[in-house]
């Protein structure tokens, strides 16, 4: 089963304001030079939130399961990582 299908099982309430952002896209270029693809943020993410398209990281923040891995994995501390506001984002049934 594709990850995108797995994510359909989750209850999401979307925060209109993205809770994740790349701080400096140039650092991602450097990261690609050093680490190749997929970069660390892409490897650790369980929800395919990050993709490398046209030499840029594109973020599908609405798929995020709020695990916290990408922030820790990024060698350049280049991800601005917050929680969605007001309890928005995922809501688990089992946890």
């Amino acid at each position, binding site marked *: 089963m594709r990850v995108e299908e797995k994510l359909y099982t989750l209850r999401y309430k979307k925060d209109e304001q993205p809770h994740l952002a790349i701080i400096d896209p140039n650092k991602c270029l450097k990261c690609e030079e050093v680490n190749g693809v997929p970069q660390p943020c892409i490897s*650790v993410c*369980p929800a395919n939130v990050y993709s490398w398209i046209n030499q840029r990281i594109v973020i599908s923040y609405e798929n995020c399961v*709020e*695990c*916290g*891995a990408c922030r*820790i994995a990024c060698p350049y501390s280049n991800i601005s990582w917050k929680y969605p506001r*007001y309890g928005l984002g*995922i809501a688990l049934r*089992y946890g």
Partner: protein
Amino acid sequence: MKFDIVVVGAGPAGSSAAITAAKGGAKVLLLERGPEPGSKNVSGAMIRLDDFSSVYDVSSIPIERKVKNVDLILLSDSNRTRISVNVESNLATAARLKLDKWMAQQAEKAGAILITKTTVLGVEREGNEYKVETDRGEVRADRVVLAEGVNALVSMKANIRPDLTPDNAVQTVKEVYSLNKDEVNKRFGFKADDEGVSWRILGTDPVPYAGFLYVYKDAIAIGAGIPMKILIKRKITPYTVLDEVKERLGLNDLVKGASLREYSAKVIPEYGFPSWKACSGKVYLAGDAIGLVDPLTFNGIGPAVASGVVAGKASLESYECSKYESELMKNREVRRVVNGRPLVKELVEEENFKYYVKTINDLLHGWVYSDFSKVKLDTSKLLKHLLLGIGVFKS
């Protein structure tokens, strides 16, 4: 609004701090970012019932099933071993949404005020009190407990502790498949509706991982934790590893016909207190926020409750930091995690992990075939880890 104590996070650590402080007569506010306690939390959830009895009324604890066996499964490239440990009492499975809600409700009954859907953004000292800033406004408190879990943004922003690194973090993914109760009983051969099992899986391929299987009343949870640095180095995603685990263990057959009800993920910390501070001024950290998990067994709820109780007491009695940290170290649960860290750090090293899974597998297979020619004993390694292990058992 002014409170004696604000507790950030209604997980096991936060609710345990809140109930302890509220029972002591303090005016306590418990803030949770999720729509309800537990709704943002991920774990296997095998729990030890005794861990809760010091502060909660356990007669109403919402368990799923009583664990009758814990099966240890070792998978190396060539061999597979399964050891089933019979459990007499005390272990159960629980779902986090119900368990965390139950803990928070007991804290409320003791007088704590719970507010959900509210994320704390920062804590700042102002004179003798603290300003707790949230996405819905600010509150004030004399003391603060930060029980915000592994992604401790508030503790990090306040410079009490650093972030984890890929060297000391495990990434886990988990899937929950729902089935009806009778079908679960049939597939596992349970004789009663409250009978359950937990599996712990240690495997070496395609990368070293620790897997688990837990049985809920009407669902089966399967997951795997992989050291983050291995995912990065091997450029492999966590769900690819979990898919391989399911394949190798035939789990797809076990959950055949069941529908996937939930997919989740969370980081497990492998580092923290006492290398990190657990306190600053009258701000006390507890649980995953200071890394109190044993990553090989995923036991984190027990230490979270235990450290939460200590934090609740500390906030109630306005401990100095040195006193809080020494009280934490006096706690058995906390000490066990702390003393286990050097050994765990060694064992999760790829080379060591592979060595032990393979050697134990080879030993047991050697015993079965009465041929130990495949077993390679590395005495210096064994001795080093034995010595570290003795330190853990003594704690």
